[in-house]
C-alpha cells in the first residue's frame, strides 16, 4: 500500500545546526504513527516540512504522493493540520473560527457538530481567550478536522488537557484512524503512544534511533529486576544494598520506583539473572529485611524511551 505520508532521508539544517539528519518515515492509510522525542529533537520541524511550511535541505518528502511545498490548495484540502497552541484570534469564538475555516473547504464538516464531537459545544460562543489550554487544543483539533481530511498531522494533540479531555480526544483520534485516515502525531505523552500508535518512531538528535510497534520497542530494552521490601531503607542500608548489587553485576544501579511505596525499587543496567537475585537475597538476609514482592519484568516503553534519549521530561502513561 502506498504511504500517505513519506519522508525519505530528510535533512534539515538551521545554519550550522542539523535538526533532521536523514529521517525516513512512512504512514499508510488507516495507520497512526507516533513521532516521539525530547524537546528540540526535530519533531515539529519534521511536521512543518510535511505541512509545506519549511523546505527540507535534502531527501524526499511526499504527502499523498505530492511534494507538500507545491501541492497548493488541492493538496491542503486533503490534509488536516493541528498546530501547536497559537494562531487563534483571542477575540473570536470557537464557532466563528470553525465557520471561517469551513468556508475554505468544499464539503466541510458541519461546524456545530464538529464542536460537539470535540466536546466544545458548551463554549461555542465563548471568546478564545477565555478557553482553557485543553479547550484550545480541542479547538485546534476541530480545525484540523473541518475539511474531513485523508491525512492528519497532529502536533502534541493532548498537551495541556485534563484526563477526561485526553480520554475523549484519544477516542476521537482512534476513531479517525479506524475510518482509514493516515495519522502522524508528535507527542511527549507515552499514554498517547501506548493507547493509539500502531508504530512509534523515536527521534533523537535529528535521527530516528528506534522504530516499531510500542510492544516491539519495549521488548528491545533490557528486562528489569523489581522488588518491594517490607520496610523503607535508611541511607546507610540504601548505599549497602546498592554496593552489593553493583559488586555482583557491574553497571547495576538501584532506583526507587516513583509513585510506589518507600521500599519499592528496580535495578537498572543489569539483567535479572540468578547471581543478581542471590546478591539481593543475601544482603536482605544479612540486614534482616523481608522481601515482600520480587519479580523480573520486561521494560516499559517509557524505560526504553529513556534508555534511548535520556529525556526526563516525558509524560508517563496515566
Amino acid at each position, binding site marked *: 500500500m502506498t504511504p500517505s505520508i513519506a519522508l525519505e532521508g530528510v535533512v534539515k539544517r538551521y545554519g550550522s545546526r542539523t535538526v533532521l539528519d536523514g529521517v525516513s518515515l512512512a504512514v499508510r492509510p488507516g495507520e497512526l504513527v507516533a513521532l516521539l522525542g525530547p524537546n528540540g529533537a526535530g519533531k515539529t520541524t519534521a511536521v*512543518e516540512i510535511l*505541512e*509545506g*511550511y*519549511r*523546505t527540507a535541505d535534502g531527501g524526499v518528502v511526499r504527502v499523498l504522493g505530492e511534494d507538500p511545498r507545491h501541492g497548493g*490548495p*488541492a*493538496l*491542503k*484540502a486533503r490534509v488536516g*493540520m493541528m*498546530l501547536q497552541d*497559537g*494562531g*487563534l*484570534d*483571542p*477575540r*473570536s469564538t470557537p464557532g*466563528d473560527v470553525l465557520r*471561517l*475555516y469551513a*468556508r*475554505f*473547504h468544499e464539503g466541510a464538516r458541519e461546524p456545530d457538530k464538529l464542536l460537539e464531537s470535540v466536546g466544545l459545544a458548551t463554549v461555542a460562543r465563548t471568546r478564545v481567550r477565555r478557553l482553557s489550554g485543553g479547550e484550545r487544543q480541542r479547538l485546534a483539533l476541530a*480545525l484540523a478536522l473541518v*475539511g474531513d481530511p485523508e491525512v492528519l498531522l497532529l502536533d502534541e494533540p493532548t498537551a495541556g488537557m485534563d484526563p477526561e479531555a485526553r480520554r475523549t480526544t484519544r477516542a476521537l483520534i482512534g476513531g479517525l484512524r479506524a475510518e482509514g485516515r493516515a495519522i502522524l502525531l508528535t507527542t511527549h505523552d507515552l499514554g498517547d503512544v501506548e493507547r493509539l500508535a500502531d508504530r512509534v518512531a523515536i527521534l533523537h538528535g535529528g535521527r530516528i534511533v528506534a522504530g516499531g510497534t510500542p510492544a516491539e520497542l519495549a521488548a528491545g530494552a533490557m528486562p528489569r529486576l523489581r522488588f518491594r521490601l517490607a520496610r523503607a531503607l535508611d541511607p546507610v542500608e540504601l548505599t549497602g544494598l546498592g554496593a552489593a548489587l553493583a559488586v555482583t553485576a557491574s553497571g547495576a544501579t538501584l532506583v526507587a520506583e516513583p509513585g510506589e511505596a518507600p521500599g519499592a525499587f528496580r535495578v537498572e543496567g543489569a539483567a535479572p539473572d540468578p547471581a543478581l537475585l542471590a546478591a539481593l537475597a543475601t544482603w536482605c538476609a544479612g540486614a534482616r529485611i523481608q522481601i515482600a514482592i520480587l519479580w523480573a519484568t520486561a521494560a516499559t516503553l517509557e524505560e526504553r524511551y529513556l534508555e534511548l534519549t535520556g529525556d526526563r521530561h516525558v509524560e508517563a502513561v496515566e
Partner: protein
Amino acid sequence: MRQALTDGLVVTWRNLKRIPRIPELAIFAILQSIMFVLLFAFVFGGAIPLPGGASYREYLMPGIFAQTIVFAAATTAIGMCDDINKGLLDRFRSLPMARSAVLSGRTVADVVYNAGILVVLMVSGFVVGWRVNTGIPELLAGIGLLLLFAFAMSAIGVWLGLAVPSVEVAQQVSFTVLFPITFVSNVFVPPQSLPDWLQPVAEWNPVSTLTAATRELWGNPNPYVGTGLPAEEPALVTIGWVIVIVAIFLPTGVRRYRNLSR
C-alpha cells in the same frame, strides 16, 4: 482567479469583523485625526496665512484626509505583523486557500476600514466649516483617489509588516517614516512657506499631490507652488505614484509572504 477572489473576500470579511472586536483601534484613529483638525483649525490655523486670504479650514481638511489615508500603511503593517506573531498566518497557510487571499484580504479590509474613518472625518470637517464647492461626481472622484492611495499605502504596510520582527517595531518604523512625509508637504502649510530647497520635495511628495488633487476636485483653496507637472496635474501624478508604489511593494510583499518561515 475565482478562488483567489472568493478567498480574498472571506479573509477581508474576517478582518473587517475584527474591527468591532477592537473598537479602540478605530476610535483612536478617528480621535487622532479629529485632534489634528481641532489643533490646526483652532490653534495653529490662525498663525498660518493662506495666499489670497482663503479659508484655512477648507484648506486643511483635504490634507487631514490625505494624512489619515497615508497612515493606512501603519494600520496594515501593525495588523500584518500582529497576525504573524500570533501565528494566524501559519494557520491560514495550512488552509486550502489562494496564497494571495491573505494579502488581498488585508489590503482590501484596510481600504474599507479607512473609507469608514474618512466618512467620520468628512462629517467632522463639515462641522468645522469644510465644504465641497463643486458637485457629487467631484466628491466621489476625490474619495476614489483617496481610497486608491489607501490601497497603495496598504501595499507598503504589507511589505513592512512582513519585514519587521514585532508590532512595536512596525509602529515605530511607520510613524518615524510617515510623520515627516506628511509634514514636508502641503497638508498643513502652503509649500511657499517652506525653504526653497525643500519646496521641490514637498511639490513631488505623493501626499502633496494627493492633497492638491482633492482640493482641486472639491474647489477648496489650493495655493500650490510651481508650474510643473505636480502643480498642473496633481491627480495624474498621484495615480502615477500609486502605480509605482504598488508595482514595487506588492510583488516584494508577496515574495516575503511566500518565503516566510522557510
